[in-house]
C-alpha cells in the first residue's frame, strides 16, 4: 500500500466527540474514583468498554474471560445497558450483532473454544459491516487445552478464523492499562469502520493485576457511528464510497433497510452479479488498506540504533522488553518492535526493521504465527536473519531466554 492511497482519517470523520458528562458516566467516575487502583486486565477491559459507551453485552462463561462478563452483568444495568448470558457463544455473537443493528455499542468476550464458535458470526459482522467487538482472552489450545494457562495461539485465527476472504482489525495490548485503552479503541474503530474488531488478550494479562490510573473521562475520546441524514428512499447503507465511514441507520429509525450475510448490492439486497460482488469485496478491503495509518499502532523501544530487534506482541513483549533493557545494560544494541495492532499487520514498520537491523528475534507462545508474517516480508529468503523462540508448554518465555538468544547471535 502506498502512502498516496492513504487518506487522513481525521478528514473523513465528523462524528468524533468527547463523552458528554451524563449521569451514567459520572457514576463510573465516582465508582472508580479515577485514582490509582489495583486492576485486573479483564476488569480493565470491562471498564474500558463502559467508558467507550458499550451498552450491550451478550456472552457465555468461559475461563479465562469470565470476569469481563461478571463485571458487566453488575455494571451495565446500572447504566441502562443490557447484559444477557446466552445459551452458547454462537448465540452470543449473534445477539451482539442484532443489538448493534438496533443501535447498540455491543461487545462480547470469550476464549479459544468460544472464539472458534463465534467465527461464523464474526464473518457475518464483517460482511454486513456491522460494528461490534469480540474480546478473546487466549488460553492454551488446541481444543479445550489448558483453560487457566497462557498461549498466543489465536493470532492467525483472529485474522483467518472465519471462512471467506475478509480483512480484519485485531488489537493486542501488553498491560492492564493498555487493555483499557485498546478496548476503547476497539469499540471506536468498530464504530468508525463498521466492522467486527477483535481484541486479543493473553490469559496472564486477563488475570494479572497492576496499578492503573484510568484517565479522566473528559480525556477519553469516544467515536460513534455516523447516522444517515438523507431521506430513507435515498439511503444506501452499502454505498461504495471512498470516504469512510458510510452512515449506518439503526432499526426502528425509519430507514427500513435490509441486512444479509449473502453477497449484497449497495442496498443490502442479495446479488449474484460479479460486478456487484467485486464492488462489495473491494469495499471491505479498501476500508482497511486505505486507512492503514489510522489503524496500525506500534511501539518502538530502543530501536533507533538497534542492531538486534526483538519483535513481540502481548505478554511476550514484556519479556522482550525486559531482555532488551538487560542487553542494553551490557552494551548490546538491542531494541523492541511491538505491534499494538496485529491485523492489519504493520508491514511497513516491519520492512523498515528488516532493513535497519542485522538480526530479528521473534519470541511467541505458539509454533510460529507472528514470525510467519515477517517471513512473508523477507525479500531474500536465503539470507534469513530471523531467529525464533517458541514456547507452547503454557509457561511464559522468561526474559533471560531472550537475552541469552540475543547474546548468542550478536
Amino acid at each position, binding site marked *: 500500500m502506498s502512502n498516496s492511497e492513504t487518506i487522513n482519517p481525521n478528514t473523513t470523520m465528523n462524528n468524533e466527540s468527547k463523552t458528554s458528562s451524563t449521569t451514567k458516566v459520572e457514576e463510573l467516575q465516582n465508582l472508580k474514583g479515577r485514582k490509582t487502583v489495583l486492576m485486573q486486565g479483564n476488569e480493565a477491559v470491562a471498564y474500558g468498554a463502559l467508558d467507550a459507551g458499550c451498552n450491550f453485552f*451478550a456472552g457465555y462463561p468461559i475461563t479465562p474471560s469470565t470476569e469481563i462478563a461478571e463485571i458487566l452483568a453488575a455494571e451495565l444495568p*446500572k447504566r441502562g445497558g443490557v447484559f444477557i448470558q446466552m445459551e452458547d457463544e454462537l448465540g452470543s455473537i449473534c445477539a451482539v450483532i*442484532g443489538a448493534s*443493528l438496533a443501535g447498540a455499542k455491543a461487545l462480547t468476550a470469550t476464549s479459544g473454544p468460544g472464539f472458534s464458535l463465534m467465527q461464523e458470526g464474526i464473518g457475518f459482522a464483517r460482511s454486513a459491516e456491522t460494528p461490534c467487538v469480540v474480546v478473546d482472552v487466549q488460553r492454551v489450545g488446541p481444543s479445550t487445552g489448558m483453560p487457566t494457562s497462557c498461549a498466543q495461539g489465536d493470532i492467525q485465527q483472529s485474522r483467518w478464523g472465519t471462512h471467506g476472504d475478509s480483512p480484519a482489525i485485531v488489537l493486542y495490548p501488553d498491560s492492564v492499562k493498555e487493555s483499557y485503552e485498546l478496548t476503547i479503541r476497539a469499540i471506536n474503530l468498530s464504530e468508525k469502520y463498521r466492522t467486527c474488531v477483535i481484541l486479543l488478550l493473553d490469559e496472564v494479562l486477563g488475570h494479572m493485576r497492576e496499578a492503573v490510573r484510568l484517565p479522566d473521562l473528559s480525556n477519553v475520546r469516544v467515536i460513534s457511528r455516523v447516522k444517515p441524514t438523507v431521506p430513507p428512499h435515498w439511503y444506501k447503507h452499502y454505498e461504495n464510497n471512498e470516504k469512510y465511514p458510510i452512515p449506518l441507520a439503526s432499526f*426502528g429509525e425509519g430507514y*427500513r433497510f435490509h441486512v444479509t450475510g449473502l453477497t449484497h448490492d449497495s442496498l443490502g439486497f442479495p446479488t449474484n452479479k460479479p460486478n456487484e460482488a467485486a464492488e462489495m469485496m473491494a469495499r471491505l478491503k479498501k476500508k482497511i488498506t486505505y486507512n492503514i495509518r489510522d489503524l496500525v499502532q506500534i511501539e518502538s523501544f530502543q530501536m533507533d540504533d538497534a542492531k538486534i530487534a526483538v519483535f513481540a506482541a502481548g505478554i511476550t513483549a514484556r519479556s522482550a522488553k525486559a531482555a532488551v533493557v538487560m542487553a542494553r545494560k551490557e552494551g548490546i544494541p538491542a531494541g523492541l518492535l511491538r505491534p499494538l495492532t496485529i491485523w492489519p499487520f504493520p508491514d511497513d514498520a516491519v520492512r523498515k526493521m528488516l532493513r535497519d537491523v542485522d538480526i530479528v528475534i521473534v519470541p511467541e507462545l505458539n509454533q510460529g504465527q507472528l514470525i510467519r508474517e515477517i517471513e512473508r516480508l523477507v525479500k531474500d529468503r536465503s539470507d534469513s536473519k530471523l531467529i525464533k523462540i517458541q514456547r507452547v508448554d503454557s509457561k511464559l518465555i522468561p526474559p533471560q531466554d531472550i537475552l541469552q538468544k540475543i547474546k548468542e547471535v550478536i
Partner: protein
Amino acid sequence: MPAIPQKIIHEYLRHDKKFPHVWCAGCSNGIVLGSIIRAIAGMNLDRNDIVMVSGIGCSSRMPVYVDFNTLHTLHGRAIAFATGVKLHKPHLKVIVVTGDGDCAAIGGNHLIHAARRNIDLTVIMLNNNIYGMTGGQVSPTTPHEAYATTAPYGNIEPDFDVCKLAMGAGATYVARTTAFHTQETQNMVKEAIEHPGFALIEVICACPVIYGRLNKKGGAPEMMKEMRDNSIPLAAVDKLPPEKVQGKIIRGVLHKDIRPEYCAQYAELMKKAQAQGGSK
C-alpha cells in the same frame, strides 16, 4: 370500501427489490407471507417498528421482499439475532421467520432458551418437512419412513413435534396451522404479535418440487388438499373418535398463558440495579 387484499400485499412489498422471488411455483411460502402481511396490515402497526429476522433456508428468504426493517442472518441463529434486537429496543415488534431445519435442528438451542426466557418474539416456523434450499435432505420434522435425498431408504428417525418442544421449554403462546388455512394463519399471527411473550406458530407448508416429488405427494394442489383433509381443529379433537384423530395435524392455539416477559423483567432488574447505586 375495504382494501383489495392484493393491493395490501403490494403496499407491504419492497419496490426497490429485484423480483421475482426465489420460491418455486406451488411453494407455500408466498401464501404464508400473504397471511403475515394481512395480519400486520390489520393491526395498524408502524412498519418502522417491525423487524423481520430470519435464518437460512427457503422460508428465511422472506424478509428481503417486505418493507420492514429486515435481517437475514446465519443458519439457525435468527432467534439469537432477534434477541439482541429486541433487548436493545424492546418497543420494536420482532418477528422471526424460520424453517423446520433452521429452527428445530441447527437453531434448536436458541429456540428452547428464547422460549424459556419468554422474550417477546413472534416465531413463525414454516414446516415443509425437508431442507428445500439445499435440495431435499432429511430434516427433524421429516416424518418417519418418508424419503429425502439423505434418507434414500426412508427416514429411520422419529419426527420432532416442535410445538410440544416449545411448550416444554416455556413458550407462552404456541399454535399450529397449515398454509391452506390462510385466514387461520392470519389470525394466529395477529394474536402472536399481540401476545406479550414468546410465541411460536408452526405453519405446515407444502414443498411440492422437492418433498412432494421425493415422496410422491403429487403437485401443489394435491398437497394443499392433503392439508385440508388431513388436519383437524383442536376444538374438534374431543368430539371425534380416536381413530379419526390418529395421524392428523391438530390445528389451533395449543397453549397460551401469561408469565413475566424477559424484557419487562430486565427493565425491573435495571431499576433494582440503579436503586442500589454505585456498589455491587
